[in-house]
């Protein structure tokens, strides 16, 4: 087992009722790597990401996070997850940022950030508050500590969500279309925070529609379509010289807009 491998997903299958959304998708992510997953909507990229922290349960394949197996499939096709408490511990190595932020509206910005460290890890309030404030300062929101999420702009909400995920000290950050619900003029501030994380060598998987961002920040770009990985490579390879016709069509379609 390569200890540098942060996530290893092998031949992931997932169906919603009759619809097969993932058809054997495999992905290895090295420590410190930034992987961008692009593709048309309905390609299964978000579903794939959500399988990594059990927001979706897979129908086949195996997932290993930080060297610990989360789920595997026996030779006769039975999917076996490790027991609940262990699965929770393994998934705690991931932090997730959602398209629609999913901040807790009844808690202030600071309370949103300190909630999980206190409840899940049992860290004392006075110990976590300085850390939380530092995280919020890094995303530029140290003047909003006592605001409720409803008072924030979309970009501010998403930056709180990033700080909230980081407060659990994850090894891998999962971004599920973090800028798709934002007004165009607000995407920049969120992308800046994510870029900053990349510079600190945080391991990240980013599902995104921001091609410019994928090109700039990612070490590796993966193009998915109809539940399969069609093409992957460095940003230069995928954007500069796409091999597959479906990738070309997708990128042409985007640049034509």
């Amino acid at each position, binding site marked *: 087992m390569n200890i540098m491998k942060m996530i290893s997903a092998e031949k992931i299958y997932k169906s919603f009722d009759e619809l097969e959304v993932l058809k054997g998708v495999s992905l290895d992510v090295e420590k410190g790597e930034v992987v961008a997953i692009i593709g048309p909507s309905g390609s299964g990229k978000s579903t794939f990401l959500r399988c990594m*922290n*059990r*927001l979706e349960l897979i129908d086949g394949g195996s997932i290993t996070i930080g060297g610990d197996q989360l789920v595997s499939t026996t030779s006769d096709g039975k999917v076996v997850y490790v027991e609940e408490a262990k699965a*929770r*511990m393994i*998934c*705690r190595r*991931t*932090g*997730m940022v*959602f398209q*629609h*932020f*999913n*901040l*807790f*509206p*009844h808690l202030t910005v600071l309370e949103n950030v300190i*909630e*999980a460290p206190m*409840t*899940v890890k049992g860290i004392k309030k006075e110990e976590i508050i300085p850390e939380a404030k530092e995280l919020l300062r890094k995303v530029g929101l140290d003047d909003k500590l006592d605001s*409720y*999420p*409803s008072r924030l702009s979309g970009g501010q909400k998403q930056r709180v969500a990033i700080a*909230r*995920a980081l407060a*659990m000290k994850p090894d891998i950050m999962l971004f599920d279309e973090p800028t798709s619900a934002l007004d165009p003029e607000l995407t920049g501030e969120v992308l800046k925070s994510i870029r900053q994380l990349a510079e600190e060598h945080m391991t990240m998987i980013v599902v995104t529609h921001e091609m410019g961002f994928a090109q700039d920040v990612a070490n590796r770009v993966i193009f998915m379509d109809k539940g399969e990985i069609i093409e992957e490579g460095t940003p230069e390879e995928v954007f500069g010289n796409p091999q597959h016709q479906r990738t070309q069509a997708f990128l042409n379609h985007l640049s034509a807009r």
Partner: protein
Amino acid sequence: MDYIFNILDQLLISTQDTFSYIFRILPAMVDGTKVTLMMFFATIALSLPLGLLLSLGRISRFRLLNSAIGVYIWLFRGTPLMLQLLFVYFGLPIIPVIGEVLVLTAFQAALLAFVLNYAAYFAEIFRGGIQSIERGQYEGAKALGMTYAQMMRRIILPQVIKRVLPPVSNETITLVKDTSLIYVLAMNDLLRTARGLVQRDFSLTPFIVAGVFYLLMTFVLTKIFARLEKRYAVYDE
């Protein structure tokens, strides 16, 4: 001139009479109010937590528990509260085994019926509240590593409280008045006390006094719930 003074005089005397009559019946009315309030507070204290438990069971994945609670709610919302009172007090004692073990005073029987009935209503209110919370809240909590219990306690239920305050307030105010049904078990609550006095003294004044008492109780409750709603209004969804 004399005539007018005469009328005023009589009015004064009758007003004085009325007031002294009210003062005379006041101790009895206060005693009746105590019974009403005891029933009210005991019912609230027990039916709210029971209702919460039932709502959690109603949305659980355990089919059997889920549908058993469904039947329970159907029974208690689908039959008159009066019937339930009568059944608990007069019906349970004649059922073999149960009747021998379960010996209830009128107060206990009434309380049992009220708690079971109101818990059914509260369970449905809470279920609706819990299910109205967006899926993203559950996912956000789960992605942060929370257990089901942590998620419910820290994230979901605090938001549910805000959403269910208006219907819970409604039910609570209804309960104040529903307690008057215990007259069928011959308990001297506020209304039955008033009725006794009306029949004894051939005066409607006790009914008016009882009405004012009920209004005072519901007024206080309305204020309390308005306060709570204001406190939860610090955040928007």
